[in-house]
């Protein structure tokens, strides 16, 4: 059994979170608040470090004057707390949204559209290839919204929906596998690091 008080705190907090599985209770609620508070504190410290490393140091220590522009934009984001000039906070938001969209434009078009279409232009000479191409088309038909799904289109779209459900089933299985890994990690910490029943 561990003699490190931090390991004990870790173990007890884990049990607190797990106690939710029995019922919502004051112990869980307490741990929940500790967790939210600790995460807020960690976020605050990272935020402070980011301001120092990404803004203050480059501008003041390294003398990179170009950093004045993002710093001013960053300060403008806080204008929302001062009613008469709260409109100023929309500018940095607009720049963040615009830059994000612009950045995504090339990457998303190239990697998620062109490369994927290219990978699906398959010769229809095997069952797998035919299934792949027809499957992609069926799912795309399901996601057409400008027409009511009637007649043969409805059947084709239903096929697409079924394929989606199969994918979700696979996904569900994967997620269960992931969740068991997380439980496994928690139990390894409790039985290994805390109680010392198993060797890690």
């Amino acid at each position: 059994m561990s003699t490190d008080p931090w390991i004990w705190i870790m173990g007890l907090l884990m049990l607190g979170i797990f106690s939710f599985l029995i019922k919502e209770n004051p112990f869980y609620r307490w741990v929940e608040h500790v967790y939210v508070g600790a995460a807020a504190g960690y976020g605050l410290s990272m935020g402070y470090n980011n301001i120092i490393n990404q803004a203050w140091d480059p501008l003041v220590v390294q003398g990179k004057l170009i950093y004045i522009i993002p710093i001013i934009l960053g300060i403008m984001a806080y204008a929302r707390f001062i009613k008469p000039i709260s409109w100023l906070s929309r500018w940095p938001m607009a720049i963040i949204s615009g830059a994000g969209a612009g950045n995504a434009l090339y990457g998303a078009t190239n990697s998620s559209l062109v490369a994927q279409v290219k990978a699906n232009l398959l010769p229809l000479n095997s069952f797998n290839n035919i299934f792949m191409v027809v499957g992609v088309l069926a799912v795309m038909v399901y996601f057409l919204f400008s027409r009511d799904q009637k007649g043969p289109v409805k059947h084709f779209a239903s096929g697409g929906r079924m394929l989606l459900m199969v994918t979700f089933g696979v996904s569900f299985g994967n997620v269960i596998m992931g969740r068991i890994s997380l439980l496994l990690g928690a139990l390894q910490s409790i039985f290994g690091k805390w109680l010392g029943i198993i060797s890690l």
Partner: protein
Amino acid sequence: MSFWDKMQKIDRRIIYALLVIVVAFPLIRPLGLPLSYSDTTLKFFDEIEKLQPGDRVLISLDYAPSGAADVHPQTVAVSKHLIQKGVKIAFVSFWEAGPMFAEQIMQPYLDSGELVYGEDVVNLGYIPGANSAIRSFGFDCVGSAPKDLNGKDTASMPIMQGIKDCRDFDVVIDFVMGSPGTAAWVQQVQGPLGINLLVGSVVVEVPASMPFVQAGQVKGLLQGLRGAAEYELLSGSAGIAAAGMDAQSLGHLLIIGSILVGNVAYFMSKKQPKNNKQ
């Protein structure tokens, strides 16, 4: 209430308790169930095997403690293999908690003198800005991370000499549990620069990563804890992931059993009223 109705309404706490017992038991008494290798793990392993001593690899740690149980064992197994091969590693992170995991991996090797910091390994720290940061780092590594985690200049470090953009790394590996992650690396860096990208992912994200593997944008993929276990066995150093595979298999059996019982009970209880009427 009939037997089948009862089977549908098993108290969830009983299932939780069973799951904990079933997962905990093989941790204490391992069963040694066999394990097969998936194609994506073999491809991942082959890419690493091609590396020569002195080659440089970038490892991006894009995960947090909440998902670490599924992905961190992958990072441990791959880093260990790379270090054994004499490959140099630069760690970077676009998730706040990432640098902490890099420290955990590096520290024992630095303490034992097996690795020299700045020469064999470096922790470039956390770079905020998500997708934009990944793009910026991809195109200008030193410019986007001028200082390492401890505030030292990276430009003067031997490991970073000659590194302009991510193409200068022989392999880039992203260990990931969400966003920003695989999609950002593929869209922002792999697509424009054509880097050699490998991914180690929490199993939840695997279906989302598969199209990138199929299109050849990601060369190899480790899938959750199982991927880590497969990699540990392939590289000849069984560790914490391989030890957990028995527990995972038994956990899956319990879940499969629960799904079967639930579905059989559902259909049987639907059938019963008809029988009563007759």
